[in-house]
Protein backbone atom coordinates (compact mmCIF):
# COMPACT_ATOMS: atom_id res chain seq x y z
CA UNK A 1 0.00 0.00 0.00
CA UNK A 2 1.08 3.55 -0.66
CA UNK A 3 0.86 5.83 2.32
CA UNK A 4 1.20 9.57 2.66
CA UNK A 5 3.01 10.42 5.86
CA UNK A 6 2.83 13.95 7.20
CA UNK A 7 5.35 14.75 9.85
CA UNK A 8 5.65 17.83 11.99
CA UNK A 9 9.30 18.75 11.95
CA UNK A 10 11.41 21.18 13.86
CA UNK A 11 15.14 21.52 14.23
CA UNK A 12 15.83 24.50 16.46
CA UNK A 13 19.30 24.70 14.95
CA UNK A 14 17.93 25.43 11.51
CA UNK A 15 14.23 26.25 11.62
CA UNK A 16 12.57 29.34 12.98
CA UNK A 17 9.42 27.37 13.69
CA UNK A 18 7.91 23.93 13.19
CA UNK A 19 6.70 22.97 9.73
CA UNK A 20 4.94 20.07 8.03
CA UNK A 21 6.85 17.69 5.83
CA UNK A 22 5.32 15.01 3.61
CA UNK A 23 6.59 11.67 2.37
CA UNK A 24 5.08 8.92 0.26
CA UNK A 25 6.05 5.45 1.37
CA UNK A 26 5.36 2.04 -0.09
CA UNK A 27 4.50 -0.26 2.81
CA UNK A 28 3.15 -3.67 3.63
CA UNK A 29 -0.11 -3.61 5.59
CA UNK A 30 1.49 -5.49 8.49
CA UNK A 31 4.57 -3.27 8.59
CA UNK A 32 4.91 -1.17 11.67
CA UNK A 33 4.68 2.57 11.31
CA UNK A 34 8.20 2.56 12.74
CA UNK A 35 9.32 0.62 9.67
CA UNK A 36 7.89 3.36 7.48
CA UNK A 37 9.74 6.01 9.49
CA UNK A 38 12.93 4.00 9.06
CA UNK A 39 12.31 3.73 5.34
CA UNK A 40 12.08 7.50 5.21
CA UNK A 41 15.18 7.98 7.28
CA UNK A 42 17.23 5.41 5.43
CA UNK A 43 16.19 6.08 1.86
CA UNK A 44 14.69 9.56 1.60
CA UNK A 45 15.69 11.99 4.27
CA UNK A 46 18.46 11.14 6.71
CA UNK A 47 17.73 14.20 8.79
CA UNK A 48 14.40 12.90 10.05
CA UNK A 49 14.89 12.32 13.75
CA UNK A 50 13.05 10.05 16.16
CA UNK A 51 13.90 7.63 18.94
CA UNK A 52 13.52 3.89 18.69
CA UNK A 53 15.15 0.84 20.11
CA UNK A 54 13.35 -2.47 20.65
CA UNK A 55 10.89 -2.18 17.73
CA UNK A 56 8.27 -4.27 19.48
CA UNK A 57 6.66 -2.16 22.12
CA UNK A 58 8.65 -3.02 25.21
CA UNK A 59 11.23 -0.26 25.60
CA UNK A 60 9.09 2.87 25.38
CA UNK A 61 11.37 4.88 23.09
CA UNK A 62 9.06 5.84 20.29
CA UNK A 63 5.98 7.40 21.84
CA UNK A 64 4.68 10.09 19.50
CA UNK A 65 1.41 11.61 18.40
CA UNK A 66 0.02 9.52 15.57
CA UNK A 67 -3.18 10.74 13.96
CA UNK A 68 -3.78 12.91 16.97
CA UNK A 69 -3.19 10.34 19.70
CA UNK A 70 -0.11 9.25 21.61
CA UNK A 71 1.02 5.85 20.39
CA UNK A 72 4.21 3.83 20.01
CA UNK A 73 5.24 3.89 16.36
CA UNK A 74 6.33 0.27 16.67
CA UNK A 75 2.89 -0.87 17.83
CA UNK A 76 0.88 0.86 15.13
CA UNK A 77 0.51 -1.16 11.95
CA UNK A 78 0.20 0.41 8.54
CA UNK A 79 -3.12 -1.32 7.90
CA UNK A 80 -4.53 0.54 10.90
CA UNK A 81 -3.56 4.02 9.77
CA UNK A 82 -5.02 4.00 6.29
CA UNK A 83 -3.60 5.91 3.35
CA UNK A 84 -2.66 9.00 5.25
CA UNK A 85 -1.06 9.42 8.61
CA UNK A 86 -0.10 12.48 10.59
CA UNK A 87 2.76 12.31 13.05
CA UNK A 88 3.68 14.93 15.63
CA UNK A 89 5.86 15.01 18.71
CA UNK A 90 4.03 14.48 21.99
CA UNK A 91 2.47 17.47 23.67
CA UNK A 92 3.56 18.42 27.14
CA UNK A 93 7.29 17.98 26.50
CA UNK A 94 9.84 20.34 25.00
CA UNK A 95 10.79 19.32 21.47
CA UNK A 96 14.49 18.63 20.98
CA UNK A 97 14.29 17.86 17.29
CA UNK A 98 11.52 16.57 15.05
CA UNK A 99 9.78 13.78 16.98
CA UNK A 100 12.32 13.67 19.79
CA UNK A 101 11.15 15.29 23.00
CA UNK A 102 12.99 16.04 26.20
CA UNK A 103 12.21 13.30 28.73
CA UNK A 104 14.39 14.58 31.56
CA UNK A 105 11.57 16.22 33.47
CA UNK A 106 9.45 13.15 33.05
CA UNK A 107 12.10 11.01 34.69
CA UNK A 108 12.67 13.60 37.41
CA UNK A 109 9.01 13.37 38.34
CA UNK A 110 9.20 9.61 38.31
CA UNK A 111 12.13 9.80 40.69
CA UNK A 112 10.24 12.17 42.96
CA UNK A 113 7.68 9.60 44.09
CA UNK A 114 10.29 7.22 45.52
CA UNK A 115 9.87 4.45 42.98
CA UNK A 116 11.74 1.78 44.92
CA UNK A 117 10.89 -0.76 47.56
CA UNK A 118 11.02 0.79 51.02
CA UNK A 119 11.35 -1.61 53.91
CA UNK A 120 12.29 -1.26 57.52
CA UNK A 121 12.41 -4.93 58.48
CA UNK A 122 15.52 -7.06 58.24
CA UNK A 123 15.89 -9.00 55.06
CA UNK A 124 15.10 -12.68 55.43
CA UNK A 125 17.70 -15.26 54.33
CA UNK A 126 15.59 -16.29 51.38
CA UNK A 127 12.84 -14.49 49.54
CA UNK A 128 10.13 -12.45 51.26
CA UNK A 129 6.85 -14.26 51.03
CA UNK A 130 3.95 -12.88 49.09
CA UNK A 131 0.79 -14.70 48.08
CA UNK A 132 -0.26 -14.84 44.43
CA UNK A 133 -3.23 -12.60 45.32
CA UNK A 134 -0.96 -10.03 46.95
CA UNK A 135 1.27 -10.18 43.90
CA UNK A 136 -1.71 -9.70 41.63
CA UNK A 137 -2.76 -6.61 43.56
CA UNK A 138 -0.09 -4.41 42.00
CA UNK A 139 0.47 -6.30 38.76
CA UNK A 140 -0.87 -3.65 36.39
CA UNK A 141 1.62 -0.99 37.43
CA UNK A 142 4.58 -3.32 36.89
CA UNK A 143 3.84 -3.32 33.17
CA UNK A 144 4.81 0.32 32.77
CA UNK A 145 7.67 0.95 30.35
CA UNK A 146 7.95 4.66 31.15
CA UNK A 147 7.21 5.68 27.59
CA UNK A 148 5.51 8.87 28.72
CA UNK A 149 2.55 8.49 26.36
CA UNK A 150 0.06 8.83 29.20
CA UNK A 151 1.63 11.92 30.70
CA UNK A 152 1.86 13.61 27.30
CA UNK A 153 -1.80 12.91 26.61
CA UNK A 154 -3.10 14.52 29.78
CA UNK A 155 -4.66 17.96 29.41
CA UNK A 156 -3.71 18.70 33.00
CA UNK A 157 -0.03 18.53 32.13
CA UNK A 158 -0.40 20.70 29.06
CA UNK A 159 -1.62 23.42 31.38
CA UNK A 160 0.63 22.66 34.29
CA UNK A 161 4.00 21.13 33.46
CA UNK A 162 4.81 20.83 37.15
CA UNK A 163 2.19 18.22 37.67
CA UNK A 164 3.63 14.84 38.62
CA UNK A 165 1.59 13.12 35.90
CA UNK A 166 -0.08 9.76 35.46
CA UNK A 167 3.07 7.69 34.81
CA UNK A 168 4.54 8.61 38.17
CA UNK A 169 1.32 7.80 39.94
CA UNK A 170 1.12 4.42 38.21
CA UNK A 171 4.58 3.67 39.52
CA UNK A 172 3.71 4.93 42.98
CA UNK A 173 0.72 2.59 42.90
CA UNK A 174 3.02 -0.30 42.03
CA UNK A 175 4.78 0.18 45.38
CA UNK A 176 1.95 1.47 47.55
CA UNK A 177 0.00 -1.70 46.88
CA UNK A 178 2.95 -4.08 47.18
CA UNK A 179 2.51 -6.06 50.40
CA UNK A 180 6.28 -6.06 50.92
CA UNK A 181 6.60 -2.30 50.82
CA UNK A 182 6.48 -0.08 53.90
CA UNK A 183 6.76 3.31 52.32
CA UNK A 184 3.12 3.82 51.39
CA UNK A 185 2.69 6.62 53.91
CA UNK A 186 5.65 8.61 52.58
CA UNK A 187 4.44 8.35 49.02
CA UNK A 188 0.84 9.15 49.84
CA UNK A 189 2.07 12.18 51.70
CA UNK A 190 4.01 13.35 48.66
CA UNK A 191 1.10 12.70 46.36
CA UNK A 192 -1.42 14.56 48.46
CA UNK A 193 0.35 17.83 47.71
CA UNK A 194 -0.56 20.40 45.16
CA UNK A 195 0.99 18.78 42.11
CA UNK A 196 0.17 15.27 43.27
CA UNK A 197 -2.84 13.10 42.50
CA UNK A 198 -5.43 15.83 42.74
CA UNK A 199 -4.40 17.40 39.46
CA UNK A 200 -5.87 14.33 37.81
CA UNK A 201 -9.39 15.26 36.72
CA UNK A 202 -10.31 11.78 35.49
CA UNK A 203 -9.93 12.63 31.83
CA UNK A 204 -8.92 9.10 30.78
CA UNK A 205 -6.74 10.14 27.84
CA UNK A 206 -3.91 8.45 29.69
CA UNK A 207 -5.58 5.07 29.86
CA UNK A 208 -6.41 5.34 26.19
CA UNK A 209 -2.82 6.21 25.28
CA UNK A 210 -1.08 3.55 27.36
CA UNK A 211 0.52 1.04 24.99
CA UNK A 212 0.72 -1.52 27.77
CA UNK A 213 -3.00 -1.50 28.36
CA UNK A 214 -2.61 -0.34 31.94
CA UNK A 215 -5.90 1.03 33.35
CA UNK A 216 -4.03 4.16 34.33
CA UNK A 217 -6.97 6.18 35.62
CA UNK A 218 -8.22 3.30 37.69
CA UNK A 219 -4.83 3.04 39.40
CA UNK A 220 -4.76 6.80 40.00
CA UNK A 221 -8.21 6.61 41.55
CA UNK A 222 -7.04 3.83 43.85
CA UNK A 223 -4.20 6.04 44.97
CA UNK A 224 -6.59 8.95 45.55
CA UNK A 225 -8.73 6.73 47.72
CA UNK A 226 -5.64 5.57 49.56
CA UNK A 227 -4.89 9.20 50.35
CA UNK A 228 -8.37 10.01 51.64
CA UNK A 229 -8.84 6.72 53.48
CA UNK A 230 -5.38 6.94 55.03
CA UNK A 231 -3.89 3.86 53.41
CA UNK A 232 -4.24 1.37 50.60
CA UNK A 233 -7.42 -0.67 50.50
CA UNK A 234 -7.20 -4.42 50.02
CA UNK A 235 -7.97 -5.97 46.68
Amino acid at each position, binding site marked *: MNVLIRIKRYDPERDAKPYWDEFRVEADPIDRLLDALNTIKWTMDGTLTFRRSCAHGVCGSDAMRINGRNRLACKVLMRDVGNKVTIEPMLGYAVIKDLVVDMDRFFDKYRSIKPFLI*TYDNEPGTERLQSPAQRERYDEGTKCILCGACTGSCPSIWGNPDWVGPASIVNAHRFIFDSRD*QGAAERLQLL*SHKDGVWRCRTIFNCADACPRGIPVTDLIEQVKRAVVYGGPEEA
Partner: protein
Amino acid sequence: MLRISSGRGPRPVAGGFETFSWYYFRISGALLLVLVIVHLLIMHISNDVSCTTYAFVAMRYSNVFWRVFDWLLLTVGLTHGMNGLRVVIDDYVRAPGARMWLLSISAVLLVVFFMLGTLTLITFPTVPGATGPLCIPK
Protein backbone atom coordinates in the same frame (compact mmCIF):
# COMPACT_ATOMS: atom_id res chain seq x y z
CA MET B 1 1.57 -20.04 57.01
CA LEU B 2 2.39 -16.97 55.05
CA ARG B 3 4.93 -14.60 56.40
CA ILE B 4 4.09 -11.19 55.16
CA SER B 5 5.84 -7.97 55.93
CA SER B 6 5.09 -6.73 59.39
CA GLY B 7 3.44 -3.46 58.60
CA ARG B 8 3.37 -0.40 56.46
CA GLY B 9 5.27 2.06 58.54
CA PRO B 10 3.58 5.19 59.74
CA ARG B 11 0.10 6.05 58.52
CA PRO B 12 -0.10 9.13 56.38
CA VAL B 13 -0.90 12.34 58.14
CA ALA B 14 -4.41 13.07 57.04
CA GLY B 15 -5.08 16.09 54.97
CA GLY B 16 -3.29 18.84 53.25
CA PHE B 17 -5.34 21.61 51.75
CA GLU B 18 -5.50 20.03 48.28
CA THR B 19 -6.92 16.85 49.72
CA PHE B 20 -9.50 18.86 51.58
CA SER B 21 -10.31 20.82 48.46
CA TRP B 22 -10.87 17.62 46.50
CA TYR B 23 -13.10 16.25 49.21
CA TYR B 24 -14.93 19.52 49.49
CA PHE B 25 -15.79 19.48 45.79
CA ARG B 26 -17.52 16.21 46.30
CA ILE B 27 -19.31 16.96 49.54
CA SER B 28 -20.45 20.38 48.39
CA GLY B 29 -21.36 18.92 45.03
CA ALA B 30 -23.64 16.39 46.70
CA LEU B 31 -25.24 19.13 48.79
CA LEU B 32 -25.62 21.37 45.80
CA LEU B 33 -27.33 18.61 43.96
CA VAL B 34 -30.23 18.83 46.40
CA LEU B 35 -30.13 22.59 46.89
CA VAL B 36 -29.84 23.53 43.23
CA ILE B 37 -32.49 21.14 42.04
CA VAL B 38 -35.01 22.32 44.59
CA HIS B 39 -34.07 25.87 43.78
CA LEU B 40 -34.50 25.35 40.04
CA LEU B 41 -37.80 23.61 40.51
CA ILE B 42 -39.21 26.44 42.57
CA MET B 43 -37.84 29.29 40.54
CA HIS B 44 -38.25 28.00 37.03
CA ILE B 45 -40.82 25.26 37.07
CA SER B 46 -43.48 25.81 39.67
CA ASN B 47 -43.14 29.57 39.15
CA ASP B 48 -42.16 31.56 36.17
CA VAL B 49 -39.11 33.80 36.67
CA SER B 50 -41.23 36.82 35.96
CA CYS B 51 -43.16 36.00 39.12
CA THR B 52 -40.18 36.09 41.47
CA THR B 53 -41.11 39.56 42.57
CA TYR B 54 -40.45 41.40 45.79
CA ALA B 55 -43.73 40.20 47.18
CA PHE B 56 -42.97 36.65 46.27
CA VAL B 57 -39.63 36.87 48.03
CA ALA B 58 -41.21 38.46 51.03
CA MET B 59 -43.67 35.62 51.24
CA ARG B 60 -40.92 33.04 51.06
CA TYR B 61 -38.63 34.81 53.50
CA SER B 62 -41.29 35.07 56.13
CA ASN B 63 -40.30 31.48 56.71
CA VAL B 64 -36.79 31.24 58.20
CA PHE B 65 -36.33 27.89 56.57
CA TRP B 66 -36.08 29.45 53.11
CA ARG B 67 -33.64 32.05 54.31
CA VAL B 68 -31.38 29.32 55.67
CA PHE B 69 -31.91 27.31 52.51
CA ASP B 70 -30.87 30.16 50.29
CA TRP B 71 -27.97 31.05 52.51
CA LEU B 72 -26.70 27.48 52.26
CA LEU B 73 -27.11 27.59 48.51
CA LEU B 74 -25.17 30.83 48.44
CA THR B 75 -22.38 29.64 50.70
CA VAL B 76 -21.94 26.18 49.31
CA GLY B 77 -22.35 27.25 45.70
CA LEU B 78 -19.97 30.15 46.05
CA THR B 79 -17.25 28.23 47.84
CA HIS B 80 -17.60 25.28 45.48
CA GLY B 81 -17.49 27.49 42.44
CA MET B 82 -14.67 29.70 43.69
CA ASN B 83 -12.66 26.67 44.62
CA GLY B 84 -13.19 25.57 41.04
CA LEU B 85 -11.99 28.93 39.77
CA ARG B 86 -8.92 28.61 41.98
CA VAL B 87 -8.14 25.22 40.49
CA VAL B 88 -8.55 26.54 36.98
CA ILE B 89 -6.25 29.47 37.71
CA ASP B 90 -3.70 27.10 39.21
CA ASP B 91 -3.92 24.98 36.10
CA TYR B 92 -3.45 27.64 33.48
CA VAL B 93 -1.71 30.63 34.93
CA ARG B 94 1.96 29.70 35.10
CA ALA B 95 3.61 33.03 35.90
CA PRO B 96 3.79 33.16 39.71
CA GLY B 97 3.11 36.88 39.86
CA ALA B 98 0.00 36.81 37.69
CA ARG B 99 -1.23 33.77 39.53
CA MET B 100 -0.84 35.44 42.89
CA TRP B 101 -2.81 38.41 41.63
CA LEU B 102 -5.62 36.38 40.17
CA LEU B 103 -5.89 34.17 43.23
CA SER B 104 -5.99 37.20 45.48
CA ILE B 105 -8.63 38.83 43.35
CA SER B 106 -10.77 35.72 43.46
CA ALA B 107 -10.37 35.53 47.22
CA VAL B 108 -11.58 39.12 47.48
CA LEU B 109 -14.45 38.37 45.11
CA LEU B 110 -15.41 35.41 47.24
CA VAL B 111 -15.55 37.51 50.38
CA VAL B 112 -17.34 40.41 48.71
CA PHE B 113 -20.03 38.29 47.12
CA PHE B 114 -20.47 36.18 50.21
CA MET B 115 -20.96 39.34 52.32
CA LEU B 116 -23.26 40.89 49.78
CA GLY B 117 -25.44 37.80 49.61
CA THR B 118 -25.48 37.24 53.33
CA LEU B 119 -26.32 40.86 54.04
CA THR B 120 -29.18 40.77 51.58
CA LEU B 121 -30.56 37.70 53.26
CA ILE B 122 -30.23 39.00 56.81
CA THR B 123 -31.36 42.58 56.26
CA PHE B 124 -34.43 41.65 54.28
CA PRO B 125 -37.35 42.79 56.47
CA THR B 126 -39.92 40.28 57.59
CA VAL B 127 -42.92 41.98 56.08
CA PRO B 128 -46.12 40.17 56.94
CA GLY B 129 -48.28 41.22 53.99
CA ALA B 130 -47.23 41.30 50.38
CA THR B 131 -46.09 44.58 48.89
CA GLY B 132 -46.73 44.99 45.23
CA PRO B 133 -47.68 42.47 42.57
CA LEU B 134 -46.89 38.79 42.85
CA CYS B 135 -46.16 38.65 39.16
CA ILE B 136 -45.06 41.27 36.70
CA PRO B 137 -48.28 42.35 34.98
CA LYS B 138 -48.64 41.22 31.42
